[in-house]
C-alpha cells in the first residue's frame, strides 16, 4: 500500500504536472490578491482636478494598535475641511493607512509598497517611535514631508530635512509630568514605564527632573509589556507609599497595572500622572471598565499634554470634524476622547499647515512647499492670523501672508524641526474627554518648564 503510493509519486510526468498546477494556483492566488481594488478615501461633491494622498504610517495592529486610528481620524477630519474648501490646488485630499504593525522591519516593505502604489503621495503622518527609525530615512530619500509622532531622542540629535515633529521630545514630556507633580506638592514619586521603545525614553529625564525639583524616586518599575499581570510591580509601588506615580504603559499593561495598584492599595487609586500619550480613548475605556471605575479614576489621574487651545478660534471646527468621523474610522471607542489627544490635535494642525504650504508654494512637491510650512507656522512679519484651512486659503488667494494658529496654538520650530507649545495638566471627565486644570505649565525644555519659550 505504502509502496504503491510511492510508485505513483515516482511517475515523473504526472508528478511534475501536478506540481506545476500547484505552483500556478498559488501564484494565481497571489496575483488575484494583488489586483484587488484598493479602496481609498471618500468622494466629495465638488469636482476636483485629480487628487492627492496623505498616508498615516502607523501601527494599526500589535501592541500599539491604538495609535493608528488617532492619526487616521486627524487625516479624515482635516481632509474633510480641506475638500470642503475646494481641495489643495483644486485637488481632492484622500487619506490612506499603512499598517506598520509596530514592527520596524515590517515597516520598510510596507512603506516601499506605499510608494509603489501611491502615485500622488504628498504627506506622511504618524511614524511613531515603533517605526520612525527605519521609515524616516526613506521619507527623506523620497523627499516626502512627514509629521512624525515620535519623542525618540535620536531625532533631537540627527537632522532630517523632511522630518517635522509637532510633539515634544519624550524628555520634555517627562519634565512636564514632574511639573504637575510639583504643583500638587508631591514629594515621593514612583515611576512605572513600559519596556517598549516608546516608553523607556521617559525614565532618565524624569529621574533628572525629579531630582532637580527636590523630590525623590521611591520606586522605579519597568513593565514587561508581554506580561499579563504586574502584581509584584504594583506591590512594590504600593509599599513604597508614593505620593504619585508617573507612568506610561500603553495597551493592556497600563490598565492591568493600575487595576492591581488600586486593589493592593485597599481599593484606592494612588494619584497617577501619565504622559500625553495616555490621553487615549482606548486606555480610558479599558481602565474605567475595570474595577477602578470612572469616578475613582478621573479623580486621581492627570496627564501632561500640550496645550489645546479649546477656547481658540480653530477649536470649534476641529471639534465638529473629529466627532463627524465617528463610524468612518475603526478602532476608536470614543471620538470625544480624541479631541485632546495630541496625535489627533497636532496632526490635524500639521495637515492644515502642509496643505496651506502647498497652496502657498503652488506645488504639492515636498521639496517645494517644505520651507513654507515653517513660514506659515511661525508667522512672518505682516502675516494675518488664520485658524482654518478655508480662511488661510482665502487669504493666500487674496495675496496675503498668513500665520496659522491651530488647535494646538502657534508652532515654533527648532533647528531639528521640532515644534511644541506650552504644556498643561489635563484631567479626564466622566465622558472620556479631557479638560485642562490649573492653567499652563509653561514651555518645558529638556530640563525645566518656563513661562516663555
Amino acid at each position, binding site marked *: 500500500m*505504502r*509502496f*504503491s503510493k*510511492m*510508485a505513483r*509519486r*515516482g*511517475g515523473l*510526468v504526472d508528478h511534475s504536472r501536478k*506540481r506545476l498546477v*500547484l*505552483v500556478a494556483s*498559488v501564484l494565481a492566488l*497571489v496575483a488575484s*490578491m*494583488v489586483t*484587488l481594488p*484598493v479602496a*481609498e478615501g471618500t468622494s466629495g461633491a465638488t469636482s476636483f482636478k485629480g487628487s492627492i494622498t496623505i498616508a498615516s504610517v502607523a501601527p*494599526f*495592529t500589535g501592541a500599539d*494598535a491604538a495609535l493608528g*486610528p488617532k492619526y487616521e481620524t486627524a487625516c479624515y477630519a482635516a481632509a474633510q475641511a480641506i475638500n470642503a474648501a475646494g481641495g489643495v490646488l483644486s485637488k481632492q485630499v484622500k487619506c490612506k*493607512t499603512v*499598517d506598520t504593525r509596530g*514592527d*520596524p*522591519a*515590517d515597516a*520598510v*516593505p510596507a512603506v*516601499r*509598497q506605499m*510608494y*509603489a502604489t*501611491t502615485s500622488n503621495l504628498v504627506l506622511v503622518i504618524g511614524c511613531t*517611535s*515603533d517605526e520612525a*527609525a*527605519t521609515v524616516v*530615512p*526613506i521619507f*527623506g*530619500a*523620497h523627499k516626502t514631508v512627514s509629521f512624525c509622532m515620535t519623542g*525618540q*531622542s*535620536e531625532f*533631537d*540629535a*540627527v537632522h532630517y530635512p523632511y522630518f517635522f515633529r509637532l510633539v515634544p521630545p519624550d524628555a520634555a514630556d517627562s519634565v512636564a509630568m514632574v511639573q504637575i507633580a510639583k504643583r500638587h506638592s508631591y514629594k515621593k514619586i514612583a515611576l512605572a514605564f513600559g*519596556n517598549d*521603545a516608546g516608553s*523607556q*525614553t521617559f525614565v532618565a529625564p524624569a529621574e533628572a527632573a525629579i531630582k532637580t525639583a527636590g523630590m525623590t524616586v521611591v520606586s522605579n518599575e*519597568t513593565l*514587561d*509589556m*508581554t506580561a499579563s499581570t504586574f502584581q509584584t510591580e504594583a506591590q512594590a509601588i504600593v509599599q513604597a507609599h508614593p505620593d504619585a506615580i508617573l507612568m506610561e504603559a500603553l495597551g493592556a499593561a497600563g490598565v492591568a497595572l493600575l487595576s492591581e495598584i488600586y486593589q493592593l492599595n485597599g481599593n484606592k487609586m494612588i494619584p497617577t500622572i501619565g504622559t500625553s500619550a495616555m490621553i487615549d480613548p482606548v486606555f480610558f475605556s479599558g481602565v474605567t471598565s475595570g474595577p477602578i471605575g470612572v469616578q475613582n479614576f478621573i479623580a486621581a489621574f492627570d496627564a501632561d499634554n500640550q496645550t489645546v487651545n479649546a477656547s481658540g478660534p480653530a477649536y470649534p471646527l476641529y471639534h465638529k470634524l473629529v466627532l463627524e468621523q465617528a463610524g468612518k474610522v*475603526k478602532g476608536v471607542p470614543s471620538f470625544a476622547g480624541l479631541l485632546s489627544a495630541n496625535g489627533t490635535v497636532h496632526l490635524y494642525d500639521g495637515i492644515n499647515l502642509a496643505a496651506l504650504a502647498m497652496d502657498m508654494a503652488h506645488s504639492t512637491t515636498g521639496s517645494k512647499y517644505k520651507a513654507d510650512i515653517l513660514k506659515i507656522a511661525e508667522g512672518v512679519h505682516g502675516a494675518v492670523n488664520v485658524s482654518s484651512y478655508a480662511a488661510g486659503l482665502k487669504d493666500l488667494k487674496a495675496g496675503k501672508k498668513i500665520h496659522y494658529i491651530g488647535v494646538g496654538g502657534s508652532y515654533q520650530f527648532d533647528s531639528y524641526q521640532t515644534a511644541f507649545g506650552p504644556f498643561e495638566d489635563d484631567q479626564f471627565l466622566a465622558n472620556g474627554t479631557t479638560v485642562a486644570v490649573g492653567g499652563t505649565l509653561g514651555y518645558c525644555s529638556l530640563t525645566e518648564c518656563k513661562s516663555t519659550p
Partner: protein
Amino acid sequence: MSAILFYVATIIVYGAVDSMACLALNVQFGFAGLSNFGFIIFQAGGAYVAAVLSMGPWQKSNEGFQSYVLGWHLAWPLPWIGAALFGGLLALPFVFLVGKRLRGDFAAVGLLVSAVLLNQLVNNFVPLFNGAAGISIVPAPFSHYWNPQGLAYQFVYGGVAVVLTVLVYFLLRRVTESPYGRSLRAMRDNDIVADALGKNVRVQRTSMLILGGMIAGLSGAILVGFINLWAPGAWGYAETIVLFAAIIVGGAGNHKGAVLGALLVPLGFEEVTRFIPPLSNPALVPALEWVAIGLLIIGFLWFRPDGILPERRRILSGAGKSSLPMPVPSSGESDSLINLGNLDQMDFRQLLRLEGDASDHGIILSTDRLTRAFHGVTVVSEVSIEFQRGRLTGLIGPNGAGKSTTLAMLAGTLAPTSGKVLYEGRDITSMPSNERAKSGMIRTFQLASEFKKLTVLENLVSAIPRQSGDSFVGALRGRRFWGRDDAENIERASEMLEGFGLTQYADSYAGGLSGGQRRLVEIMRALLAQPTILLLDEPMAGVHPNLAHKIGDQLTRLVASGMTIVMVEHELAIMDAFCDPVIVLAEGRVLAQGTMSELRAMKEVVEAYLVG
C-alpha cells in the same frame, strides 16, 4: 516608476533574507532532522553583532541615546563575517539539547523556550542591547561613499543579497549532495542506526546547528544593514513558525522547495496582504494572515506532507534519470523466491577489502564479567565469553536469556552496568558505538532499521567507511575531490546489490521494500561498512527459511574470507550448518558452548530450552 523599483529592490532584499533563512533551516530540519524551533535567535544574534560591529564606539556616535557594546566601526564585510561567526558560536550552547537522545518534540520545546527566554532577556536588559527600543541608525555598508537611499545602491544591495543567497544555495547543495549529505539524511531517518554505522551523530548535529546558525546570522546581518535598525520586536518566536510553515509548504529536504516556500510564505503572504484594504477592524487582515499560516501548516501536513517540491529521490545507479517504473516489491510470501543472484561468484575479500590471514583463529573479542541490569533486574550477569577471529559464533538461548543485550553491549549501543569488553586485547568498554563501528565492529538491528527515505543504493553506499566526501570539509571540497571515490563506492555497492540480486531496486526508497528485502539491505549495508567483526542481531527473523539458508551460506563464505561474525539467532535449525561455535545463554549467564550437535546432546541445554 522609481517608487516601484524601490519596492522591487526591497522585495528582493527581503526575499533573499527569507530564502537564506529558509535554506539554512531546511538543512537543519529537512536534511539533518533537527527541529530548531529557536532558529530566529541565530538570525537576531547575527543581526545584532553586524549592527554593533559596524557602528562607532558608544558615547561618541548617536549622542549616547542608545546603549550597546562592541562599537568597533568595522568596514564591510567584516560586520557580516562577524555576524556569521557569531551565529555559529551561538549554536554551541544548544548542542546539549540536540546532542542527547532527547525526544524530538521535547528538544524542539527546549529550543522554542530558549527563543522566548532570550527575547525576554534582550527586551529588558538595556545595557547590552538597549532593551526593547533596540539599536537604530545602524550605518549602511558603504554609506560614506554611496547614498544608501539611492535606487542604484538599493539594487546593488539587493544584488549582493541575491548573490550571497545563491552562494549559500550552492554551498548547501554542495554539502547535502555529497556523501556527507547522505550521512545527514541517514541520521535524520534513523540516528541510532547511523551511529552504529560509525557516523558521529553528535558531531553531525552540532555541525549543522553551527552551519545553519552562521547562515542565519548572515541573513540577519543583511536585513539589519538594509533597514539600519535592530529591534528585538522583529525577532519574535512566531517568526520561526513562519519559517517552518515556509519549509513545509515548499518542501522539506529540497533546497528549491525552501526558496519557493520563502518566497510564498514569509514574503508572498505579507506583501500580498498589505494590498488588502483594512476591513471592518484593522486587526482583521493581519489576524487572518496568521490564521492562514496556521491553516497552511495543518493543511500541507495533512494533504501534501512533502510540500510543493518534495524531496528528490537520488538516482545513483547507472540507470540515470530515465523514468524507469519503480519495481513493485514482492510481498512477504515471495521472499522465498528472492534469488541471491550471482553472489557465489563474488570475491568478498576483494569487494569488502578484507585483510589479514583468514586462517588465524586467535581471540579477537572477549568480555569479562559483563553485567547489565535494567531497573534493578539483572538481564546479563557476569558473562565472560571469547570470540575467535574468522569464525561465525552463534549466540543462542531461550527468550530473556540476554542475547540481544549482550550484543548491544558488544557494539556499544548499550553501556554495561559492570564488566569489560576487550577488542584485540584492548579495553573498549567506554568507547562510544560510532567509534567501535569505525574500528570495525558493525552491528545490525533486530527491528527494521533501513534509512527509509534513502534509496537502497544510498543505504548501502552510506555505510562505506572512510569516504573522502563523508565529512563536512570533504563535502566542501566538492565533487572533484570526492567524485571518483564516490563513483567507486557506488560501483562497489552496486556490485554487492547485484550479488544479492536486488539491482532492480537500486533506486527505490528502502522504506518501501518487503521484510526480507529490507533484511538483505541491512546485511549488505553492514557488509559494506567493512566490518572486522560483524554483529548480527537475529538477521533471519521474519525471513523465509529458503532465503535464510541462502544468507547463511554467504555468511559462511564471509567467515572463510576472514571476517569474524557474531550472530544472535533464535532459528536454531540453521545454526548447524553455519555456526561454529555456538554459545548458549540462559537467564543472563553462559550455559554452554560447542557445536550445535554437541549442544543438542547436552542435557542442560535441552532443559534450558524445554524447561520444565
